[in-house]
């Protein structure tokens, strides 16, 4: 089990690329299009390596690479590390790196994207913390191995937390009603606007790692029942693609109000209920 998770963590960028390719294909089929081949993200990856990189300044490029490395560390500590909470904090750290990079250049789109990214952190990360606390309460441990062996699946004790996490996925993965921080054609990618060539590649790959990070937390809700976990991941995947195709972008105020006003109280209610009267 431990070695399997280690191998998964090392292969996480490859796996994330496949998930991203599948998502583009599924979204295209939902719109009755052919869609790109499943390996399309890797073709993009190799093509971007051949482009000439234009740097704004070295700190900006460094933050792009730091974003990728911190996101990979977050996946590592989620899968093999001792503590789930550390993974969440590393995830926040990765997003803060890219925010610092976004603020460091003069482009107004980049600065605006970074500002909106801060709102994304404000909206999504408390819910992630509640999800992890919920997993702890249901299984009695912060460790992934113990959670993957916990017998009644955490989903049964934490149905509200899971539903809330499902609704938070568009915020975490920057998908359509809440793709506010990168808003293509509105602020042209937000903080990713000034990256190019191999430096853009780092950012592009880090986004694949986000998929692995988020879907693995969803998988943990299945507990020892791995089939249930895979089913939940599939449900979340299709849900995100459907929501992305069928909604339009909301504003930052809608996102923060919806997240902190509706989702967070629901998750907190479930967690406190189980903590106080669950046993």
């Amino acid at each position, binding site marked *: 089990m431990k070695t399997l998770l280690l191998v998964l963590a090392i292969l996480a960028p490859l796996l994330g690329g496949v998930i991203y390719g599948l998502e*583009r294909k599924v979204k*295209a089929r939902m*719109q*009755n*299009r*052919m*869609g*790109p*081949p499943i390996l*399309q993200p890797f*073709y*993009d990856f*190799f*093509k*971007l*390596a*051949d*482009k*000439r*990189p*234009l740097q704004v300044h070295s700190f900006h490029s460094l933050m792009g690479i730091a974003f990728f490395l911190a996101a990979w560390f977050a996946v590592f500590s989620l899968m093999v590390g001792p503590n789930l909470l550390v993974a969440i904090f590393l995830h926040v750290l990765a997003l803060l790196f890219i925010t610092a990079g976004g603020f460091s250049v003069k482009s107004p789109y980049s600065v605006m994207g970074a500002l909106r990214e801060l709102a994304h952190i404000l909206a999504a990360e408390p819910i992630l913390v509640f999800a992890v606390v919920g997993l702890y309460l249901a299984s009695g441990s912060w460790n992934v191995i113990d959670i993957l062996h916990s017998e009644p699946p955490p989903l049964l004790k934490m149905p509200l937390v899971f539903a809330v996490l499902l609704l938070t996925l568009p915020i975490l993965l920057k998908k359509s009603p809440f793709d506010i921080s990168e808003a*293509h*054609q509105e602020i*042209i*990618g937000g903080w*990713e*606007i*000034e*990256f*190019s*060539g191999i430096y*853009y590649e780092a950012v592009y790959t880090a986004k694949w790692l986000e998929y692995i990070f988020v879907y693995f937390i969803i998988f943990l809700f299945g507990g020892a029942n791995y089939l249930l976990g895979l089913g939940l991941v599939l449900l979340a995947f299709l849900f995100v693609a459907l929501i992305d195709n069928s909604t339009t972008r909301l504003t930052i105020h809608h996102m923060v109000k919806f997240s902190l006003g509706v989702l967070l109280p629901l998750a907190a209610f479930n967690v406190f209920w189980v903590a106080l009267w669950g046993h």
Partner: protein
Amino acid sequence: MFKFLKRFRKKSPWILHYNTGSCNGCDIEIYACLAPKYDIERFGMLNKGNPKQADILLVTGPVTKRARARLLRIYMQMPEPKVVVAVGACACTGGVFRHMYNVENGVDRYIPVDVYIPGCAARPENIIAGIEKAIEIWEQKSRDRLELPKVCTKTLDGKQPIDRRQIVEELVGKYTEKLNPEELL
């Protein structure tokens, strides 16, 4: 190494679309290419609004005097290797707006154009065929073909304001020298 990477170019051309004052006819046809009927995403094409990550520049419209500085700036911001496709009669020659007082008669007076797509408006099939041709040309190019002019030679301390108009004029001069303006006029 680069030979290995070159193979993937034709599989993921990212396009950037810029309208230099066209009547929007060609723009609608370009968006028709992205819609389900023609679906150019099946070839891996994405409409990136960002010149720093794009490979193919689709230009529509006769270049108006207001748009030429932006056109040059966008062209300059695209990293090598890149190709330019002029979409529609206006972008090729100026079309019905040719020799009007506010129009510069086509894209190739200012930036080097690789593929010309005729039509008013250009049909989606033509646009797809033109992009295919552009990919063929793109595969021949190397990433260090054209030397980009360096603008920021002196360090900026942030106290003196940057005169963007002056920078663009300097670049316009450099590019028209490279293109040999006597041949074009």
